[in-house]
């Protein structure tokens, strides 16, 4: 995957680049409007992460330029502005998704992966991880050819894990992903444990290896053993 991160906050940019680099991903970055414009006009990306407040110009303008250039790059807006207007304006201008700061890197990764899957596989939308195959649009999972039946939450959780493979994902991030961040949940996310336990059990029964590990009680990691 080729990803362009347009973000003026250096510290945040570094974290995003560190999280996304690896596993065959190529990440480029731009920290101001001019640099970003140059990059999007010269190259094509699978996904562009776009911060709205940029030095030298308004991020939404880049969306318009992208459209003028007739590019099909996926765009995910990351903004500190929790404004419905901005969100609607961004989506109207052709952005694929909108994520409000602060966010979990795992959530960002999951959303970027979803955009890229939609763009690249023209609706096929399939994730393959070793013996596990997930057809996201049809909500079907097979392990070594065996069909696995999961609940909606377990399915979402698996897709989330697969988008963040080999990364530690916090329970907090998982809860917000599954229940939405508006929910104002209590700080006790232990109820997630049930879902994780069931998912793991079903995958093991279908013959998959045990890819899930609990990490320090903070979260879980799904990945190569």
């Amino acid at each position, binding site marked *: 995957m080729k990803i362009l991160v347009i973000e003026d*906050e250096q*510290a*945040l940019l570094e*974290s*995003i680049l*560190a*999280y996304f680099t690896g596993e065959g991903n190529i990440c480029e970055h731009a920290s101001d409007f001019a640099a970003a414009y140059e990059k999007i006009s010269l190259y094509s990306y699978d996904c562009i992460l776009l911060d709205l*407040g940029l030095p030298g110009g308004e991020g939404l303008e880049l969306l318009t330029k992208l459209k003028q250039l007739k590019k099909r790059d996926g765009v995910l807006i990351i903004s*500190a*502005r*929790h*404004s*419905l*207007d901005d969100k609607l304006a961004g989506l109207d201008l052709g952005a694929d998704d909108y994520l*409000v*700061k*602060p*966010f*979990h*890197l*795992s959530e960002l990764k999951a959303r970027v992966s979803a955009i890229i899957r939609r763009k690249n596989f023209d609706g096929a939308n399939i994730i393959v991880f070793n013996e596990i195959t997930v057809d996201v649009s049809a909500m079907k999972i097979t392990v070594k050819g065996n069909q696995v039946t999961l609940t909606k939450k377990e399915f979402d959780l698996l897709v989330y894990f697969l988008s963040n493979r080999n*990364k*530690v994902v*916090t329970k*907090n*991030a998982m809860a917000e992903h599954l*229940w*939405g*961040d*508006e*929910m*104002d*949940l*209590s*700080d*006790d996310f*232990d*109820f*997630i444990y*049930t*879902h994780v336990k069931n998912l793991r059990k079903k995958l093991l029964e279908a013959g998959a290896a045990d890819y899930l590990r609990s*990490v*320090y*009680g*903070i*979260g879980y990691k799904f990945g190569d053993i």
Partner: protein
Amino acid sequence: MKLSNRYNKANILTSIVVLIITGIIYYVVIHFILTEKLDRDLAVEENEINQYVNTFHKLPLPASYLDQQISYKTLSGIISEREFLNTIYFNPKERENEPGRSLITVVHLDGKTIEVTITKSRVESEDLIRIILLITLGITVVLLLSLLLINRFVLSRLWRPFYSTLNRMKAFEVTRMDTIEQELTKIDEFNELNKSVNAMAERVRQDYKELKSFTDNASHEMMTPLAVINSKLDSLLQTESFTEQQGALLEDIYHATGRLSRLHQSLLLLAKIENNLIPDFQNIELKEMTEAKSRQFQELLEKDGLVLTEKLVPVEIKMSRYLADILLNNLFSNAVRHNVSGGHIHIQLDQQALTISNSGKASHLQTKIFDRFSKSVDSEGMGLGLAITKQICNLYGFRIDYHEESGEHVFTVYFGG
């Protein structure tokens, strides 16, 4: 009291007092003049009698003609003084008693002293005074009436620009960016008022704009470092060489940043609702939404062993979907959070109201429950949920009510206000 009424009252009172005083002076003066004239006539008559007596050495006939009577009386002893006085006399022509003016004087004839009383009718002068009085009264009434009419019509027309300015001020909303259009009048004071009102509105709007952009900027500036902290925590977690103890520390930091960003978002949301900045207004199927919400909360309910019962009928209300979601979220979270283990929640929805009642510990916040940052000691929340809920209700004219009965906390949202 309206200004015009107040003005009318003063105006009319003064007019009445002035007119009454004028009337009295008028009456006295005219009365005095007319009496003077009668007295002069009586003196002329006396003179004539004297001349007659001097010429013919006898008294003229005691005649009564032209509203004038002369009578004689022979005096013996005391000689009365010459004097004018008001009397009542019998007018034979009219056959009735009439007010009159008499002159009592004496003539000396053949050594005898004879008292002569000359009486003239005062009816005419009385009539004159009456007419003058009536005319004065008439003028008074006409004057008062015209004053009232002028006040009513001219004043109300004069004040019209003032009331239109007042109405525009009442309808003024800081969030709407349209300017108050000027109503042209020829009156300097109102033009000045208009100018000042517009200048003030402009200033308020400017301040509001600045405040809004400040809030936006503050939000942006605060969210960015928060985003950095969050992302750095996520990155730190990937390095994977922590002890169990460090893991616990990390978890605490996660919780704190999570709370901070939720707190910040809640405050921004409150500000937005207060300023009516959430435009998405649509029909909401509240029943479906409530059912979806109870599915969403299922894990939380199961965790605490709560039993949820629902009695819902299809209800459609008009509001923002986003805010409806937050409203339900907050009420649900509240019912779960302030519940006891193994307790229950009952939700009832009908055309009038949405009621959520739950078992729970007794609270002591009754009156302050909808205030910002008011929460029970053991609550994990921020104390903003119900404040937001209340604001949402205010925005759409709903009324939210809370009471506690037999260990149950009952929240009711009345859609009709």
